[in-house]
């Protein structure tokens, strides 16, 4: 594991972005350690290709590095910003390359043990939680969200693919996402975080 600058581990995401804006490279490293795993998983899910996924994650983190000074915490969490950059980059590439695929990924191999075990436990809990919430959505809403987010389809493409009016697709995406928001209201399982004070 990376033991450099462990102190940064106790700063909030937003404080790290502010430090990255001041060219503090270790802050970028810490943001990668927090969100690189989710970022790569997402890019790989959309792009189905290791090299393209790596490029998308690199582009997104370099965007963070270049534009950290203009990040507005009031508009959303830093983790949302980072994963939005990764997603947008991956979707741009998948649309350009026409390589998107809709089947779920084959089960990923269990990562090696050692120091990563505790972290894996957390990643698995998050995955279970969001998957369980997705399963509670009506099939058509879940399908619209998954094809849009993981498949990279635009709403017009989805309307055509599913043989539905675009208004129906919009409404499925909106209702599905709003319902998911309710299902994920669970402060103890926030993916972004604020430090616990021990003083």
């Amino acid at each position: 594991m990376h033991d450099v600058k462990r102190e940064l581990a106790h700063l909030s995401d937003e404080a790290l972005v502010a430090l990255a804006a001041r060219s503090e490279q270790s802050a970028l490293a810490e943001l990668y350690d927090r969100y690189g795993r989710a970022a790569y998983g997402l890019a790989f899910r959309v792009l189905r290709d290791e090299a393209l996924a790596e490029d998308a994650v690199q582009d997104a983190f370099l965007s963070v590095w270049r534009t950290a000074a203009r990040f507005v915490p009031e508009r959303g969490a830093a983790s949302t910003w980072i994963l939005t950059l990764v997603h947008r980059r991956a979707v741009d590439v998948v649309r350009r390359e026409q390589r998107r695929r809709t089947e779920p990924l084959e089960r990923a191999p269990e990562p090696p043990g050692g120091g990563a075990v505790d972290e894996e436990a957390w990643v698995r809990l998050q995955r279970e939680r969001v998957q369980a919430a997705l399963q509670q959505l009506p099939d058509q809403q879940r399908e619209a969200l998954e094809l849009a987010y993981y498949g990279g389809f635009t709403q017009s493409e989805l309307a055509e693919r599913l043989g539905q009016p675009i208004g129906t697709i919009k409404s499925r995406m909106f209702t599905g996402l709003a319902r998911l928001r309710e299902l994920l209201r669970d402060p103890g399982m926030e993916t972004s975080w604020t430090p616990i004070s021990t003083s």
Partner: protein
Amino acid sequence: MDADLHELTAAYALDALDADEADAYEAHLAQCESCRTELATLGKTATALAWAVEAPAPPERLRSRILDAAAAERTNVVPLLPQRRPWLLRATAGVAAVAACAAVGLGVWAGLLSRSLNSERSARATDARAVEILADRASRRVPLKGGQGVVALAPDGEGVLVVRRLPEAPSGKTYEAWVIPHGGAPKPAGLFSGGDRTTVLRLDQRVPRGAVVAATVERSGGVDAPTQTPLFSAQS
């Protein structure tokens, strides 16, 4: 037209608009407070989908590749590449970033830097039983209040505490977990040092229904009854 654009918030959050639609929506967003509010929460929900993916871990080399590229860029002024501007970024943000940084507090920052790098951290391997309980779909998950994490409870009451990003316990102190049965006295349920990205602790005590699991900071070696207010807790 505006009502139409209003409805695009979810599609925008999912990146399901084509370039023209996205431009039109962003122009609308600049003038629509309610869409901005809606987007803040729907955008967060959309990115939650990133965590649902079962995908391989990134190759080790990616981290250094990114950091090397970042270091190379910062040594000379690089113009921003022409790309669609994410909504979260606007020219006014510099002020907010500085404010966020000031809010961290220079004192806190200095304190964090001066904390000894090589202070002892227990190299305890994660208990195999804890991993089993976490992997067991039959175990219940109770989110923590006051902290980030969860208590996983097996059907027989065996419990595992998972806490994220707990700072290392201050010198001479330890974290102590407690199981507090409904109407009963707190029972010591294990000591831990924090300081890891994620702490996983199998509780020494079974957790009956209705009990509270909590943690306090106590003197090294632990105590028999809590002397401090809980940092976080979970009601089973």
